[in-house]
């Protein structure tokens, strides 16, 4: 029997971290970024810059910044300027300036010690390294909400002030901040806010035809010729558009539809594959978001998902969640974390929008946090997590 050949030729082009060579429909925004940071290659060390990229989910904020970073670092290299572009996701760093700086530092010093000093000391050390290497840095703080929510105004203030303290020294550190929720800026002190708001790049939602162009571009890169008919692209673009011009969602949908086509041994990705994929991709819970969670956070959500799969109630108490988590830990042969740590997981998962929490009221004895899973079907979440956990380390009963 002939083996079915995959519809994909290079799946990595649909990966969330892939940065395309050409950015479609973001020329104006790219030009703006280039204008803001032109001095880095023309007059390095003379000034620094701060820019803010704002827009809804899937509007190309991250890819714009990364694309710009790659291009400007390349141009700087041609001019013999040691310019480094470092992109850090604040949520992955749990909104901690220390972790953000540490991640940045490891790009220059992979073996730099991981503890034993403060964020301020680390920032000083980073500037020292930049001076020694005569290097310049454009640091992008993606999902800035997480940093501001966790540490308020101080981190951005410190990052700006470090340059001001070095009056005669070359200016080495510039910032790009990426933000989804504009109201997060209200938490900043007026001076930090005003310096950030000077250079704003607003990302509009992609229209249906723009999404179609983007998808078409990715299809050419990722799929074998003729495997994705135009009507399939049309459906995905329409769905992406209905999710607020969300290109990330549309690309994930395209990838999943391809996976369904392969699983069903089809020669083409037909609209039916998209319909199947739609059910499994929830725009509010991105795969990469779950991936970014720690092992025990994943185990905790798995416990919650399994509880709701069996239960008809809308909420579960913190105690029930801990029990469900303990069961999952047992299954995966992991030592369960204590109450305080679990409480931190609940806060992080709630901030990420995976679960919702409220404090119990009348009818419940005492006071406890009630957890709900309102947006995603528990069975789908469970399926996704079991898959991810088995990829990470072996599967049920043979964790590690």
């Amino acid at each position, binding site marked *: 029997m002939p083996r079915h050949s995959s519809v994909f030729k290079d799946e990595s082009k649909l990966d969330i971290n892939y940065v395309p060579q050409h950015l479609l429909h973001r020329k104006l925004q790219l030009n703006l970024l280039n204008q803001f940071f032109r001095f880095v290659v023309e007059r390095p060390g003379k000034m620094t810059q701060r820019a803010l990229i704002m827009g809804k989910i899937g509007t190309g904020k991250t890819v714009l910044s990364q694309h710009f970073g790659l291009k400007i670092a390349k141009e700087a290299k041609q001019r013999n300027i040691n310019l480094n572009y470092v992109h850090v996701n604040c949520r992955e760093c749990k909104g901690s300036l220390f972790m953000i700086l540490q991640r940045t530092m490891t790009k220059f*010093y992979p*073996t*730099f*010690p991981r503890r*034993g*000093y403060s964020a301020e*000391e680390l920032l*000083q*050390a980073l500037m*020292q*390294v930049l001076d020694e290497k005569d290097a310049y840095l454009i640091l992008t703080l993606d999902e800035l909400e997480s940093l501001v929510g966790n540490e308020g105004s101080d981190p951005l203030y410190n990052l700006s002030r470090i340059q001001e303290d070095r009056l005669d020294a070359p200016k080495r550190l510039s910032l790009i901040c990426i933000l989804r929720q504009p109201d997060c800026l209200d938490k900043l002190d007026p001076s930090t806010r005003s310096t950030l708001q000077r250079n704003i790049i607003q990302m509009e939602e992609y229209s249906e035809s723009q999404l179609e162009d983007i998808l078409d571009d990715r299809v050419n890169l990722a799929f074998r010729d003729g495997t994705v008919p135009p009507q399939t692209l049309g459906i995905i673009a329409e769905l992406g558009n209905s999710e607020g011009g969300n290109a990330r969602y549309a690309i994930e949908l395209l990838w999943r539809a391809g996976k369904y086509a392969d699983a069903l041994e089809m020669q083409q990705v037909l609209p039916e594959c998209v319909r199947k994929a739609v059910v499994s991709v929830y725009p509010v819970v991105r795969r990469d978001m779950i991936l970014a969670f720690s092992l025990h956070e994943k185990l905790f959500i798995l416990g919650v998902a399994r509880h709701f799969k069996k239960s008809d109630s809308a909420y579960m108490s913190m105690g029930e969640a801990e029990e469900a988590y303990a069961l999952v830990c047992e299954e995966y042969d992991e030592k369960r974390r204590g109450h305080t740590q679990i409480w931190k997981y609940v806060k992080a998962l709630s901030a990420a929008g995976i679960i919702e929490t409220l404090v119990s009221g009348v009818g419940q004895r005492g006071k406890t946090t009630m957890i709900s899973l309102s947006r995603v079907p528990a069975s789908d979440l469970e399926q996704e997590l079991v898959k991810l956990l088995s990829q990470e380390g072996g599967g049920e009963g043979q964790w590690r």
Partner: protein
Amino acid sequence: MAIEDVFSSKGRMKILRILAEIRELNISEIARRAGLNYSTTNQHLQVLERHNLVRHKTFGRIRIFRYNEENPRARMIKQLIDLWEQTK
């Protein structure tokens, strides 16, 4: 220092081997990898630094030690370590 003073100390040789492989590390990490305590590691590093086999750099409170590959003796010791490791 005579050559036997370097080679006769197990701790110093461990530290040299670690730094020759990793190139740069802070004291705590060197101590952890060598299985020595902080102060012993610090003393060994000072001896090695006096003989120009390692160098250090300071970042505020943090000291990072590096293998001094500019020193011909250090280069020869590294070659010996590499050869030793390869033919183990």
